[in-house]
């Protein structure tokens, strides 16, 4: 007797839908309050995504202002001081307020669905992460209204950021803001580690896990190990600035290079924190639109883990020009080259995935192919930087700017756009317009290459980074005898082509959301469990936990043999008086052993879903953290009050019934 029943399928979107579950003892809030108090991973994912996208627009406007200033020699669009604020906040915003939280948006929305879980392990902590991130981002930018935006560079090199050389509060906002954002990242990372390790559906062994979930797992490990380093670095900086210590203050014997080591021990794994989630998305998208499984799944998993591991052993390649000596430089050159090996494996495996497939050029696929191609270019220039003598010419030049934009824009952001186009139907129930989507891709793709491609040439021509102006005699303009014409002008114009692509994307989203909710469960013929659910999924996700018998479980189930299908249709199951569905992603007739496992998995009552209560405490507690940060700048009384407030909030949180 099989316990299998009405199942989700593309043809029959009727889900085993449970009557709306009770919300426990507290009232379920409506409207605005429901968003403030939500602990639903899907809603938090949407909050993360929308907030991060707003910061993306902010960082993008900052980038456009930078490019207007640099379009011609002796630009006068912004002052030198304003320019330094712009590039500092462009980097800080794009890294900490866009790419990271946007990746977390995907972790939130997609991972629990991919592993067949009802939510993350700690739903309220998840909400706390979001509010802490939002407040941290606002706090850092609020510096604008006090002393101007931070201006020490995203890398905040001491001693420029010490009190002696940066006496205003700008660096305080940056330093404390990063600490607050670190709390958000760490809480999120622990949450996803626990979720992925403990809450996978029955049968989903680690090596059956969807590849995006694998990337989330490894990224979370990187976050947990990398953030303590910058936390320490920032605490030392805070002591130098607030209490007159001398960790970085050279005249009293401090060492500025200490900051660089601590920063880059964080900073290099951070690069992989930015890119691995996008690699995960691409590794989901390429197989779906090639109609083939991911080529060499175990190799891709091992390569991802290897990148994460070696990523902690290459930090000094950011410091080849600090005079570490030939032995250290040789070691870090070799370790940096080593990390290119697993990265190359991934690129080849992606091509192996497409090889022999039936490739459909949808918008998510275009962005993913763009990722593979652009990331290869960024990888090649990255290997050039591993060659120390070459790096002595390229370090801090526009060549490096070109390199990391090929990796982070051509890589991470292309991946994110691919992910948005791919999962948008699942997130919202609306389909994005494919025609506009393709226009978006080609605008961004061409704008991107004309913006960052020529930066290679500017770098080879010796143009340093972070300069607010340059002279006509320096060789970075002057085509056809015209001072104003040159690669810098091309780059600046192309930056606006990217902006046009982003604007078109926003128009597409706006139009889609106004249109009908027409997204089927599985619009792309995908392989992972989230596509077995309605679009968007119900609040409790799976009415019955799915049971997994293979990798790409949903794909296998959709193509199960007819014998299995026939057996399924004969059986029904009733639990506690309710007829429930059961998602058993099986591609062959079940053995007695499997059936026993399944019956075991059914020892629960679907009327008592463990849906956590909405809660005000996450946002309240997050506000306490911000009060502490504000207090460090404007008066310790506020900091103490914020601390007490936080303690009370956490106490209330602990006492609150969870369901």
């Amino acid at each position: 007797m099989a316990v299998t029943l009405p199942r989700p399928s593309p043809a029959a979107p009727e889900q085993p839908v449970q009557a709306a579950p009770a919300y426990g003892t507290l009232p379920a809030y409506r409207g605005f309050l429901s968003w403030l108090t939500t602990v639903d991973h899907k809603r938090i994912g949407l909050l993360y995504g929308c907030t991060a996208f707003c910061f993306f627009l902010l960082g993008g406007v900052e980038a456009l202002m930078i490019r207007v200033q640099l379009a011609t020699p002796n630009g006068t669009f912004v002052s030198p001081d304003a320019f330094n604020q712009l590039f500092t906040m462009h980097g800080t915003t794009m890294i900490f307020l866009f790419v990271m939280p946007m990746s977390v948006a995907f972790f939130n929305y997609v991972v629990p669905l991919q592993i067949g879980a009802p939510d993350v392990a700690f739903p309220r902590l998840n909400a706390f992460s979001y509010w802490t991130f939002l407040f941290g981002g606002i706090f850092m930018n609020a510096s604008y209204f006090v002393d101007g935006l931070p201006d020490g560079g995203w890398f905040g090199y001491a001693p420029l950021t010490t009190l002696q050389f940066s006496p205003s509060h700008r660096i305080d906002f940056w330093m404390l803001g990063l600490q607050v954002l670190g709390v958000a990242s760490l809480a999120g990372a622990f949450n996803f580690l626990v979720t992925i390790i403990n809450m996978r559906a029955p049968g989903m062994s680690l090596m059956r896990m969807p590849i995006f979930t694998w990337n989330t797992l490894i990224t979370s490990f990187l976050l947990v190990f990398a953030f303590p380093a910058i936390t320490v670095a920032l605490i030392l900086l805070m002591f130098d600035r607030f209490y007159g210590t001398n960790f970085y203050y050279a005249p009293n014997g401090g060492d500025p290079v200490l900051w660089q080591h601590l920063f880059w021990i964080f900073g290099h794994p951070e690069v992989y924190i930015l890119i691995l989630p996008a690699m995960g998305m691409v590794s989901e998208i390429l197989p779906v639109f090639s109609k083939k499984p991911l080529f060499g799944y175990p190799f891709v998993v091992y390569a991802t883990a290897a990148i994460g591991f070696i990523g902690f052993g290459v930090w000094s390649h950011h410091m080849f020009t600090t005079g570490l000596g030939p032995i250290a430089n040789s070691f870090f050159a070799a370790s940096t080259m080593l990390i290119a090996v697993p990265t190359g494996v991934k690129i080849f495996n992606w091509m192996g995935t497409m090889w022999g497939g039936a490739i459909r050029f949808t918008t998510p696929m275009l962005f993913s192919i763009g990722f593979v191609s652009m990331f290869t270019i960024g990888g090649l220039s990255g290997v050039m930087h591993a060659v120390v003598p070459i790096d002595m010419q390229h370090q801090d030049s526009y060549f490096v700017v070109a390199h990391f934009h090929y990796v982070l824009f051509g890589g991470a952001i292309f991946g994110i756009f691919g992910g948005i186009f791919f999962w948008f139907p699942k997130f919202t129930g609306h389909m994005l317009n494919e025609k506009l989507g393709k226009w978006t891709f080609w605008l961004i793709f061409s704008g991107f290459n004309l913006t960052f491609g020529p930066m290679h040439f500017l770098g080879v021509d010796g143009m340093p980074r972070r300069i607010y102006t340059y002279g006509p005699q320096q060789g970075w303009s002057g085509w056809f005898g015209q001072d104003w014409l040159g690669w810098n002008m091309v780059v600046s114009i192309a930056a606006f082509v990217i902006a046009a692509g982003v604007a078109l994307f926003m128009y597409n989203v706006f139009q889609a959301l106004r249109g009908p909710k027409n997204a089927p469960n599985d619009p792309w013929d995908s392989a992972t469990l989230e596509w077995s659910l309605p679009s968007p999924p119900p609040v409790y996700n799976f009415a019955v936990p799915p049971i997994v018998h293979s990798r790409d479980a949903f794909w296998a189930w959709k193509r199960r043999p007819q014998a299995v299908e026939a057996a399924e249709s004969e059986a029904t199951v009733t639990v506690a008086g309710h007829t429930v569905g059961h998602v058993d992603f099986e591609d062959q007739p079940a053995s007695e052993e499997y059936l026993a496992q399944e019956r075991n998995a059914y020892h629960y009552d679907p009327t008592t879903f463990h849906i956590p209560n909405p809660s005000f405490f996450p946002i309240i507690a997050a506000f306490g953290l911000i009060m502490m940060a504000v207090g460090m700048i404007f008066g310790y009384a506020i900091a103490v009050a914020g601390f007490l407030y936080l303690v009370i909030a956490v106490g209330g949180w602990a006492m609150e019934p969870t369901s």
Partner: protein
Amino acid sequence: MPFPGASGRRRNLLILGLGVALLVLLTGCAAEVPHSTVMPKTDAARKIQDLYVFVFWLSVVVFIGVQGGLLYVLWRYRARPGHELPEQTHGNTTLEVSWTILPAVILVIMAVPTIQTIFALETDPETSPDGSKPLIVEVTGKQWWWEFKYPEVTLPNGEVLTTANELIIPTGRTVSLHISSDNVIHSFWVQQLTGKIDAIPNHDNHLWFTAEEPGQYFGQCAEYCGVQHAQMRMNVIAMTPTDYQAWVAKTSKPATPPADVAEIGPQTFTDNGCFACHTIDGVQNANGKVGPNLSHFGSRTTMAAGIMQNTPENLQRWIEDPQAVKPGNVMPNLHVRPRDVEVLVSYLQSLK
């Protein structure tokens, strides 16, 4: 399916053309690109260049291989109507192991010359066995200009020869720059001479090179160092050994301004407080160390850390309002009277 590109010969021509186009784009032309990193003028820069050319072409090969392969896959395996579900291949261990090993081999091929060059560039000529002494120059990064000291040249007053923003070196003799900072971190980068090295407080970093031919080489601070990072430039003038000796002999002695400013010049300099920050050898009390040493200011080709030509007009603009020329720099607007500006300009220009 055959590859769409026609004959092999046409393909070869295409690849050759692409390579040439890339090379042209990358190198540019000497007269127009004073900061070019690929026009080496010293032994050290040449070592970097040789390595760069090797790595560049290796990268071009990998680039064409991967991107060409990608395009081929996209074209060959595009979905066509009426096609069955493609074969569900899950992997191929032989293939995967080989494309793990292949990049590793390429990287080893790159690593060997890399490490050789690292050690070649960092061999200290001061300890070299052949006994030839390099010219040591102490370089200090300031906010936002460069100071150069020549410990082997002692002035009559006991100080060492000090200059700013324009480094004079002889050709054919190894130069050993000892680079540091007494404020924030800067980075010394004169592209045609060699790669950059950071100027870090409490650290003594070195660069070594031997200039091959006389000429003026332009450089710029490469580490973000505050509001005027963009205008912290410098240049290096390489002279024949004879010219260099003449320069040292001349610069070791105080400049002799012409009679019309010989008296009133130093007087005006002192009256306006310039001496508090600037040194002029031979002028009483003019031994400030905050700003650049001006002892032979008139002999420099550029001023204000290499951002403009050293002409009377530019100098006048600078003295009238330094903050308008280089906002945020350390020198305040001293509201010097027009008459004094005129005197100071002729006086400073005459210090050759």
